């Protein structure tokens, strides 16, 4: 027996290592199937790996950033002064616009609260830099340089100004792992902008995001925009996801299609991302000052409007706000000061308003004039038929 072990010890060690890892895999898959996350041991291994890999990664990243910073800030400063002045102007303009938009947002939220409608807004984001990848093409996971100490938490949405990127998968002290939307284990609720068809976004085996299990629909066409639906409790509603690239039949289910997307964010070339850390209103002091300024301005405008209304009350007008529409001074025919409206003629002729001939002989005018009848003009009746016509 001993000689057998000695003779085949290399093979036995190999088998032991393989069996141990296969058992470990089986346990992890079982946990995943029951909806549980990583076990304590697996999480510990991930923590150690991250603890070993992240510091050198950060050092490499910082070194590269430092060299780039030195170049950009000390050697490459052409036209910076002009750009700075332009940017300052843009900031001033945007601050004013932002104050107005914040006002609208607040008002919208108040109205939605009244309607008991829950809508998530992006109010606070943390900018993070991508410092590393998973190292394999089969896994679309990357590491960012912000972690728990920066307010990052699990399942927070990660976006860029172009579109959504993924969600935070694991958080460590100073770093976090992000699962991109094109990973096979990712998931996000999305909606097609034009057709309003909803679906679940996942990554496929080629690393492309696709909406799965969609009932075949002729209206789905390449180029259609896809947005987040907001029902997954991770991504706020209405963020761009991408555009439809192609529609392919689901190989496993008849009548269903998979909609392959071209992502809006450049998932292969990410440098900086935004982590949405709050979807509740948290205005900064500066924003609150802007809102206060806006409200003061609004108050002054309201005061001005009130004064003008007071002045209007003191002056005679054609419309009395206290009277119903049928008793308005404008419709009162008893008041001689106001001309009554001409009624529609029974027999319209060339003297009827809007039917008058451009020029008429004076004799006819005299004959048809109301003065010839010796009666005052009566605007409430239709004008008599002109005599000249009968002659």
């Amino acid at each position, binding site marked *: 027996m001993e000689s057998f072990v000695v003779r085949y010890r290399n093979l036995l060690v190999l088998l032991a290592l393989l069996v141990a890892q296969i058992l470990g895999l089986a346990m992890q898959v079982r946990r995943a199937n029951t909806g549980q996350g990583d076990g304590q041991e697996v999480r510990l291994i991930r923590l150690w790996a991250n603890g070993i890999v992240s510091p050198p990664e950060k050092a490499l990243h910082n070194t590269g950033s430092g060299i780039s910073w030195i170049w950009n800030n000390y050697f490459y400063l052409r036209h910076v002064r002009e750009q700075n002045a332009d940017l300052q102007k843009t900031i001033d303009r945007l601050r004013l616009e932002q104050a107005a938009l914040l006002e609208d947002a607040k008002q919208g939220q108040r109205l939605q609260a009244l309607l008991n409608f829950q809508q998530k807004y992006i109010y606070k984001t943390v900018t993070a830099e991508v410092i590393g990848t998973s190292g394999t093409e089969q896994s679309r996971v990357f590491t960012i340089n912000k972690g728990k100490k920066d307010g990052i938490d699990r399942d927070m949405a990660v976006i860029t100004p172009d579109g959504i990127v993924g969600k935070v998968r694991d958080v460590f002290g100073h770093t976090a792992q992000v699962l991109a939307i094109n990973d096979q284990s990712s998931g996000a609720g999305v909606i097609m902008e034009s057709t309003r068809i909803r679906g679940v976004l996942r990554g496929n*085996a080629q690393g492309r995001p696709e909406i799965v299990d969609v009932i075949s629909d002729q209206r789905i066409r390449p180029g259609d925009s896809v947005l987040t639906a907001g029902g997954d409790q991770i991504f706020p509603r209405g963020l761009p996801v991408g555009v439809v690239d192609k529609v392919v039949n689901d190989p496993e289910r008849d009548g269903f299609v998979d909609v392959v997307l071209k992502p809006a964010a450049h998932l292969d070339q990410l440098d900086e991302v935004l982590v949405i850390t709050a979807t509740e209103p948290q205005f900064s002091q500066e924003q609150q000052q802007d809102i206060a300024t806006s409200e003061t301005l609004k108050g002054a405008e309201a005061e001005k409007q009130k004064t003008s209304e007071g002045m209007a009350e003191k002056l005679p007008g054609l419309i009395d706000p206290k009277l119903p529409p049928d008793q308005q001074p404008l419709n009162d025919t008893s008041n001689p000061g106001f001309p009554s409206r001409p009624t529609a003629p029974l027999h319209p002729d060339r003297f009827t308003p809007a039917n008058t001939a451009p020029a008429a002989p004076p004799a006819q005018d005299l004959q048809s004039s109301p003065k010839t009848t010796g009666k005052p003009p009566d605007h409430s009746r239709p004008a008599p038929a002109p005599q000249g016509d009968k002659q």
Partner: protein
Amino acid sequence: MSVLSADARRDYEIHRYPVLIYALVPVLAVVLQAWLPRLLHRYAAFDLPLVVTVFFGLSRRNPIQGSILGGILGIFEDALTGHPIGINGIAKTLVGYLAATVGILVNVENHAVRLIMTFVLSLVGSATYFFVVRFLLGMSVDTNWMAELYKAIGNSVIALVLFPILDRAKIRD
């Protein structure tokens, strides 16, 4: 021409390195494997932990050490992905074992042999990876063999440059 037994060849040609090399090179391989694809994007067709596993397997000629080193590096790689831990671990355990086993049988000082060994073992590693993912875990995976071929070529080129550099750190009796 004298014919050496496997044990005799091992006794004569086992390479030894400073502890720092054993500690730093695998860590550096994992770090660079995670960092370089961010800069090189789709051109990052290499697997540095596999190259290091092959190098130490061929140099040390100890299947147990090769298996353990490959297993640890693979598990570290898995820990950085969102996938279950052990997929790369199994693949690189096998690669480490095979590298060390073959290292006993052939002359690994020859650059051509090293090149071919790295190329073949890269493909073996990829095949094992896909086998585990598809048949043991039942996950769908894009089996792009052209990409794996490019990766094997990339690994061989890196091995051609890296192995002589690491050979310089060898402890000579």
